[in-house]
């Protein structure tokens, strides 16, 4: 990047299955308080905010209305993106790179526990003319994808069992994770099928949480204690329809990675990146993401946080949780260059990623 952008503040709530004590307002307020304290800034210094959310998840039409108060940015520049938090992170970084703004925050939260008919809402995302009338549970998309991907990649269901077991077990050492468990691949293999070959234990379960990251220009980050630099960002969509989808590969991640790698100057990701916090909404997606990212087997840490299988699926906040895990790892010296990547779940082909580093390259 020609003009560097840093993450200077990172705040998040512990991920929980439910958070009955707080509305989305208090949950986000807590994450923002933590982030601003971490950045050593007052809320009045925040010039702009990017929020990531969807109407039918919040149960509010034009849900961007309810974004400014809990971020302390009343009467300032706020925009909402119908995207993952990592889309928001990329946009916040661009806002700073225009030169017009110095401190921009990105926010995403999940109150998944408040949504009573989640599967119906996912079905509502299907093409209304071609796909919805078929009446399938929307998870069938993940099952079909898993089947084709395993076939093309010459992987087995057992490989997916191992991924799920690894991530659930990794979450044991992550105090904010909602679904840690000592599990083996055999345990995973015993869980019931949902849309075969997909099993229940291959699927990340939903949870609540909120994340706020504070981004700053290079100039403004100079005073920051522990800046983490954004080396590259990328996002992309693959085909819009199920009928035109390349089921065996993650084309969106491939396209997004081309942009992010070029920006970050990454040529050999397996060697140059030492931490991957990537999509695992379904266990096979982790393998699919790594393949699309050009990461060879046996590369460095993959989802040591536990991923969404172990931490919980915090909807459009999951990408920012992954980024936050990367920030923590970089600050504690466990990583030098980390990659966070997210997919927005069925039925989308929408992917975003960020490459974070201890220095700006």
């Amino acid at each position: 990047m020609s003009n560097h952008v840093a993450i200077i503040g990172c705040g998040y709530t512990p991920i929980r299955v439910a958070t009955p004590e707080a509305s989305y307002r208090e949950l986000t307020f807590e994450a923002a308080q933590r982030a601003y304290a971490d950045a050593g800034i007052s809320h009045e210094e925040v010039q702009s905010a990017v929020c990531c959310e969807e109407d039918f998840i919040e149960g509010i039409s034009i849900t961007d209305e309810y974004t400014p108060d809990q971020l302390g940015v009343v009467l300032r520049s706020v925009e909402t993106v119908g995207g993952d938090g990592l889309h928001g992170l990329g946009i916040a970084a661009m806002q700073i790179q225009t030169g017009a703004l110095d401190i921009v925050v990105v926010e995403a939260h999940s109150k998944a526990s408040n949504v009573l008919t989640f599967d119906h809402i996912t079905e509502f995302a299907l093409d209304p003319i071609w796909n919805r009338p078929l009446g399938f549970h929307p998870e069938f998309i993940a099952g079909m994808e898993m089947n084709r991907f395993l076939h093309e990649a010459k992987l087995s269901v057992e490989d997916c069992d191992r991924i799920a077991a690894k991530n659930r077990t990794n979450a044991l050492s992550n105090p904010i994770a909602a679904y840690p468990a000592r599990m083996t691949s055999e345990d995973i293999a015993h869980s019931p099928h949902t849309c075969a070959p997909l099993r229940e234990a291959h699927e990340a379960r939903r949870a609540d949480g909120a994340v706020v990251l504070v981004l700053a220009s290079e100039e403004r980050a100079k005073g920051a204690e522990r800046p983490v630099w954004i080396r590259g960002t990328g996002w992309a969509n693959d085909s819009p329809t199920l009928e035109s989808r390349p089921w065996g590969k993650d084309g969106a991640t491939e396209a997004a990675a081309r942009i992010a790698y070029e920006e970050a100057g990454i040529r050999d990701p397996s060697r140059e990146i030492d931490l991957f916090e990537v999509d695992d909404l379904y266990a096979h997606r982790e393998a699919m993401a790594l393949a699309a990212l050009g990461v060879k087997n046996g590369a460095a840490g993959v989802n040591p946080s536990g991923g969404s299988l172990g931490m919980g699926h915090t909807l459009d906040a999951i990408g920012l949780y992954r980024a936050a895990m990367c920030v923590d790892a970089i600050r504690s010296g466990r990583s030098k260059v980390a990659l966070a990547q997210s997919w927005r779940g069925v039925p989308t082909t929408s992917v975003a990623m960020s490459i974070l580093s201890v220095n700006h390259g």
Partner: protein
Amino acid sequence: MGNRVAVIGAGITKFVRRAQETPPELAWAAASQALDNAGMTLDDIDCVIHGTAPDAFDGVHMKAEYLSAGSGGWGKPYTRTYVGGGTGVFAPIHSWMHLASGKFKTALVVCEEKMSSCQPHPQGAFITIFDHTTERALGPNLLWIFALEQHRYMSVHGIKNEQIALASVKNKHNARGHPSAQIGGELTVEEVLDSEILAYPVHRLMVSPTSDGAAAVVMAVEDVAKAQTGQPVWLEGVGWALDTAYWTNRDLYYPRYVEKAAWMAYEMAGIKKPTEEIDFAEPYDPFAYKELHHLEGLQLAPKGGAPKLLADGYFNRDGKLPSCPSGGLLGVGNPIAAAGMMKICELFWQLRGEAGERQIQKPLRRGVAQAWGDLMQVGTVVVMGT
């Protein structure tokens, strides 16, 4: 500040009460015309921005993912942004970030709304804009908040409804020259005031219609823009601001969030005296009073002073500062996000001298477009110039 960014092509569908086309087909219609106008194909586009307001209209959750088929998002960096009714003017700002940052060189910006999908009436999508715990139980509808705001504006300044009705008359007249227009026509103030009262002080003819439609622009950084066209129209300043969601704790008589957004854009454009340095305006006019309210927020009229200037002909197409020469939402129609984008298109056509029978006759150097939305809360402002 950042790279210079220009609009180099624009496209629009007709705005209609109920379109035969599906949402992706509407998006495609606008996007493909904008590309043709810019002399480009989708292969020349680095990133795609989609602007659309509530998902409930088109009746699809994560609607932009579904719409990516028509917006050209396949295989490209694609994001959807929304700030309620402010979306249409915000989408080019969102695109500006992509380009001014240096990350991308070209962008396709598409705004679409198909309100007619929402049955029995698109207003149903607005019930759920209110706070789910403290307001929705009262059974509110969208007209309430407009009526409450208009009434506050009138009572603080002592404005009469016939002064406000004139905005409908002007815009529906202006829209007669717009080939996309849904409800242009010649009306009198009396006819507006004789139309049914929907929610006092709002009469039926003071309200924009519900519409289906799409509008799009192609944007590019300076070197691409200059290579592509002899007439790029530059984004000179952009601004956006969002006020608190606690709307009953604010004085609704004045849109301070529009003022905030306007000054952000004006400072970027180097504008110190807006009335002298801006040649024409496309303020957001979903309701008649909103045009006046917004002209004040845009610093183009003193607080409470817009109605008198309107009556004096100051905002007519041949006036000192033409306002809504397109015909606005009151005349052209209001497919929410697409309506805001229609205003960006109007700036583009007027500044290139391509507005046909709508063309403002005086020389034009600079115009401002503005949109508004959410719970009377968001201001989005774009200044464009030759």
